[in-house]
């Protein structure tokens, strides 16, 4: 028996009052808008309104009559659905968060809405829109106690709610890991998305000039002369890059990554100051991106992702343009087992044959499309065969060279990418489930891909031998 004499073991319905009140709630009224539009346009307002009301009440009541919930001490049950019936079972140890919500209609009727959330997913895994306040409070109390008994070590937001605010522990000293110098911020603007944004802004500006009756082309070619066009371009491109660089500088001004206790903190920005905080004990994975433009500079962008633990916590932070040792320094704090980063094993030679074939096919397809669409002559056909197909094959070779994988100290490092290289860093302990996926083309060559499912995203170990893929999947799914 739960406190207050409310036995939650017997399957029960939500409050019937709630089912009726939902019809006149904001959502219910919103659903009625299309019916009203029809009603007004046909001039039969009363009839359509009456039918609509009957249908709304009936469907709400039927849905209510099929919704049964209970809690047996270990597992929360919810059976619902009119056409598609769903029976949901949530083990109490998995419950992360319970929330009571009392809107005006709940308060007037002595009801409450209950939301129960587990890790991952989006939104509440279980919603009871209207139960009596006594039931809601009993459910929350029982879930709390059962969960604490199952796993007493879990710290959570409810403790704060129940025992009042916990005095904050003395703040540990903050240690700066990386601080980007202005030169690198300029580079980040020139190589980052700002370049495209500034170009778009310039195009918009030229467009505006045209609207004003000034044709830039006419002005340039006729009045100034062709040599001046070259000069203009020679000025415009550096100016464009300078503006992009400046935007990067202002946006990421004083970008600093530091750790304090178990928090990774990234701050940046001149006009608008940003501060992102990530709990290092909840970090899921990291990604090291060596973008094409950055590879010659030996720089890489680092993205660290976490399962956000509460409001205001970021689910990921990006630290751009790090040198290899700086990447290691950050990784050492968020995923200690990931450093030193291992040398990645290349993919088997069958993967190279697959990549080359794919590149060649893509080249032929692209060339063929151009020939068909443009009625190309024999000469252009030759150019296509001599340029497009080799380019496809070359990209295939690059994408093969981009493949790499290694496991060290329970952390998987998986790299993909033809021009830019992206390396995912995934601890086995964070993998939720795994799948060995092999397309027909992969099976022909004895290859497969292992997909590691994480809270939030999935990471692939691409084009390894089937046997190896199975071994990886088996390792990451054993406790």
């Amino acid at each position, binding site marked *: 028996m739960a406190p207050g004499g409310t036995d939650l073991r017997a399957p029960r319905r939500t409050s019937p009052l709630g089912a009726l009140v939902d019809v006149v709630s904001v959502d219910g009224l919103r659903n009625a808008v299309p019916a009203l539009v029809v009603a007004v346009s046909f001039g039969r307002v009363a009839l359509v309104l009456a039918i609509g009301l009957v249908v709304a009440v009936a469907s709400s009541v039927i849905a209510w009559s099929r919704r049964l919930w209970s809690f047996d001490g270990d597992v929360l049950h919810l059976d619902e659905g009119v056409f598609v019936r769903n029976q949901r079972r*949530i083990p109490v140890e998995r419950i992360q968060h319970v929330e009571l919500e009392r809107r005006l209609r709940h308060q007037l009727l002595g009801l409450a809405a209950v939301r129960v959330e587990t890790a*991952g997913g989006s939104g509440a895994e279980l919603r009871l829109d209207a139960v009596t306040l006594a039931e809601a409070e009993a459910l929350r109390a029982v879930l709390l106690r059962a969960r604490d008994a199952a796993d007493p070590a879990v710290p959570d937001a409810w403790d704060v709610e129940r025992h009042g605010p916990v005095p904050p522990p003395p703040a540990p000293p903050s240690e700066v890991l990386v601080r980007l110098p202005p030169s690198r911020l300029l580079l980040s603007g020139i190589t980052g998305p700002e370049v495209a944004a500034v170009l778009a802004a310039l195009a918009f500006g030229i467009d505006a000039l045209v609207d004003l009756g000034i044709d830039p082309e006419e002005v340039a070619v006729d009045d100034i002369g062709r040599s001046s066009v070259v000069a203009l371009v020679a000025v415009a491109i550096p100016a464009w890059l300078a503006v992009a660089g400046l935007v990067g500088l202002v946006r990421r001004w004083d970008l600093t990554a530091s750790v304090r206790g178990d928090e990774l903190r990234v701050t940046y920005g001149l006009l608008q100051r940003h501060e992102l905080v990530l709990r290092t004990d909840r970090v899921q994975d990291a990604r090291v991106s060596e973008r094409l433009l950055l590879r010659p500079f030996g720089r890489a962008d680092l993205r660290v992702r976490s399962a956000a633990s509460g409001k205001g916590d970021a689910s990921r932070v990006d630290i751009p343009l790090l040198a290899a040792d700086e990447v290691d320094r950050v990784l050492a704090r968020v995923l200690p087992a990931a450093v030193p980063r291992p040398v990645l094993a290349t993919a088997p030679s069958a993967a190279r044959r697959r990549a080359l074939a794919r590149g060649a096919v893509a080249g032929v397809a692209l060339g063929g499309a151009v020939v068909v669409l443009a009625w190309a002559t024999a000469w252009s056909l030759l150019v296509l065969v001599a340029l497009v197909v080799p380019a496809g094959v070359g990209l295939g070779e690059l994408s093969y060279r981009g493949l790499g994988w290694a496991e060290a100290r329970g952390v998987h490092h998986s790299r993909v990418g033809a021009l830019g290289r992206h390396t995912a860093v995934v601890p086995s302990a964070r993998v*939720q*489930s*795994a799948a060995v996926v092999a397309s027909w083309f992969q099976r022909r060559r004895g290859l497969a891909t292992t997909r590691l499912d994480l809270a939030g995203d999935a990471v692939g170990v691409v084009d390894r031998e089937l046997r190896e893929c199975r071994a990886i999947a088996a390792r990451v799914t054993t406790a």
Partner: protein
Amino acid sequence: MTGTTGLVPLERRVLSLWRMRAGLVLVAVAALALAAGAGSGAWVAGLGSALAIGLGGGLLVRWWTALVWRAWQFRIGDDALHLRHGVLVRRESTIPFHRVQHIDLEAGPLERRLGLTSLVLRTASASSDSTIPGIDATEAGELRERILRLVGAGDAL
């Protein structure tokens, strides 16, 4: 890892489910073809194309669903659910029970008529491939209880 021992197929009835679903779509398309033919006065052409869609599509569906069914196997191990499925793209998925967040049994009207249900294990990852589409509705409850007992305590993240 999985090996081939202990892998079981889906209920044969799921074939009927897939074929009925596809059949409904085929009937709708064939009806559209017939209506289009009738609308433009070409009754014979409309009837012919409706029949062609119905027969050709029916044979295609029959053949393809049989392939899909033959490729589908699953095994409930001691610590994980193993799935194997896919005709063109083969998938072998492993969902460890200690990662399961909650379990759903889902059945639409057609499934209920056939006494079938889908068992879905939800993990914290949205990309987990963890649905068994056609198992016997009476066995599903038992399977779920077995898995719920195995889910047990532990850090799921």
